[in-house]
């Protein structure tokens, strides 16, 4: 177990380090960081002067070591725009993003598990066919358009919920629903196929043979065994969920990390861009790591591989 743990920690470290390299290379090698600081019509001499002043003319490796030394202790530099440490800005926005992600996950689970069970139990029934059809359509749905349509229906037409903003539970409903509906099709298919596998097992027949009710067979014996693979895959899809949250935030003006990031991109606020991407990557890698760990504890076959 400790070897397995050590390997996972090393992988986590490499992943986060790799992301920091990508972010650095994109901003400092491919892009020209001076563009973020001066108006486009600035003459070349001034640019050179400023490059020297900010240290952008030093060898790229030296700049990277500088950046890495800061990043390790959470110092990504000051935001060009807000004159505040970039990390603080990101951490301020993080709760909103996590709130949205968790709520979206919740909505997805609430849809996916019951529908998946019903679809598998009554395979090829009308309900199963409709669920499959909706799932296929859902996977082709651009999430930002889904968001706009939800606003159109529930905010503009019915006037039930606010179109955007943050603070009250009502503000969370539409974005969370949007993100949940976006994630649910994949989760639903997973539950369904896992459930189908399990329902064909011998111990299900045994459970029925000893006279258990169908409810007990499905909920206690089948569902529990389905959940291990489902939780694994869903956990590993956390990155996808984050990607969905990024898009959802922009549609509903949800003040999370993604909205901060996109504004930083518009204004070329490099420290904030770097901090936001690295923190999001850290969270995703951390969740993947935890999922691996939990699965390894539950299923000894994995850590022995």
């Amino acid at each position, binding site marked *: 177990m400790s070897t397995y743990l050590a390997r996972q920690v090393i992988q986590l470290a490499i992943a986060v380090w790799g992301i920091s390299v990508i972010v650095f290379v994109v901003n400092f090698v491919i892009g020209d960081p001076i563009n973020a600081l001066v108006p486009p019509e600035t003459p070349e001499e001034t640019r050179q002067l400023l490059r020297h002043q900010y240290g952008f003319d030093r060898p790229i490796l030296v700049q990277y070591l500088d950046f890495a030394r800061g990043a390790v202790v959470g110092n990504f530099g000051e935001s060009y725009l807000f004159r505040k440490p970039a990390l603080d800005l990101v951490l301020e926005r993080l709760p909103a993003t996590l709130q949205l992600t968790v709520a979206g996950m919740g909505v997805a689970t609430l849809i996916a598990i019951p529908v998946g069970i019903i679809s598998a139990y009554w395979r090829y029934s009308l309900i199963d066919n409709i669920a499959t059809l909706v799932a296929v359509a859902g996977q082709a749905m651009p999430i930002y358009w889904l968001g706009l349509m939800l*606003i159109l229906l529930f905010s503009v037409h019915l006037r039930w919920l606010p179109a955007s903003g943050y603070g009250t539970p009502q503000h969370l409903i539409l974005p969370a629903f949007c993100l949940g509906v976006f994630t649910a099709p994949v989760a639903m298919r997973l539950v369904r196929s896992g459930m189908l596998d399990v329902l064909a097992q011998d111990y299900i027949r045994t459970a029925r043979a000893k006279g258990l009710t169908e409810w007990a067979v499905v909920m206690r014996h089948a569902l529990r065994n389905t959940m291990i693979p489902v939780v694994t895959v869903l956990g590993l899809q956390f990155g996808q969920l984050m990607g969905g949250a990024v898009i959802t935030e922009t549609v509903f003006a949800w003040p999370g990390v993604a909205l901060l990031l*996109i504004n930083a991109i518009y204004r070329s606020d490099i420290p904030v*861009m770097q901090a936001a*991407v690295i923190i999001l990557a850290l969270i995703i890698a951390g969740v993947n790591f935890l999922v691996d760990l939990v699965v390894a504890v539950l299923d000894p076959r994995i850590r022995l591989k």
Partner: protein
Amino acid sequence: MNRPISDGVSAAAGTLILPTRRAMPGWRKVLRRLWQLRTATLSGVFLVVLVFVAVFADFITPYNPYEGELVNRLRPPIWEHGGSWEHILGTDQVGRDNLSRLIFGARVSLAVGFLATVVAAAIGVALGLAAGYIGRLTDTVISTVINIQLTVPFILLALLFIGVVGPGLVIANYIAVNVIIVLGVASWPIYARVIRAEVFKLRELDFVTAARCLGFSDARILLRHILPNAFNPIIVLSTVQVARFIIAEAFLSFLGLGTPPPTPTWGSMLADARQFMFDKWWLPTFPGLAIFITTLAINLFGDGLRDWLDPYSRNI
């Protein structure tokens, strides 16, 4: 399928008599298969029509998508009060015809979706082949890069890249080079991972050993023997990718980071529509519907293609 042998065996002579069945002509087999996969066939037909419309947009659209008349701005579609045959889907905030802009928007979406897939496939297949065939350190390095990049959601990387490099050169008014490169570079690991696994499987097979014994060069074995056998997964993955790229391009344009104005794109039409959506529901509805129907058709077509190419799901 699994009929007992005695079915075809005449007990007296002990010889095998095959049931006489006239071979079905090739074209009928194809037609029957198309009927079995009718959803995919229909989607394919729709996509062919869409490509046709996009290519000949100049001759089909009733109006120039770049020029509007301000007096005619924000006209409703034909079935709403005040709509007219002149602008079937109404006009936008500067009086440009919505239908014409939707048709021209298909150009951007299809071109970016297709070309970005080519970029992603080219990088991913090359690195996947290298990782799977050479193995050792090469594999370790490439696999690590794949894992690193797959940690971050594709859309986040695409946003970061496009934010730094900008939309770049726009060819023929609708192909933004950087958008295509960024989408491709942000998603090559998906290809590399699939190809790598495929090569690992194939390189142990006898025909590869045979080719090696014959003294063929590595390049020849890779390109002539392994790559063709990995072709089906590439094609199936590519259909999914085209749809993903269309959605992603529209999102970048929606944020104003994709194909720059005045080029009509589905994403930028959605963005323009946002400020008017409170009393004009049709403005955000149609561009989104265009994206949705197109990606749905591509996904359904891809599902059918997978069934067609995968011998195990084929019922003969």
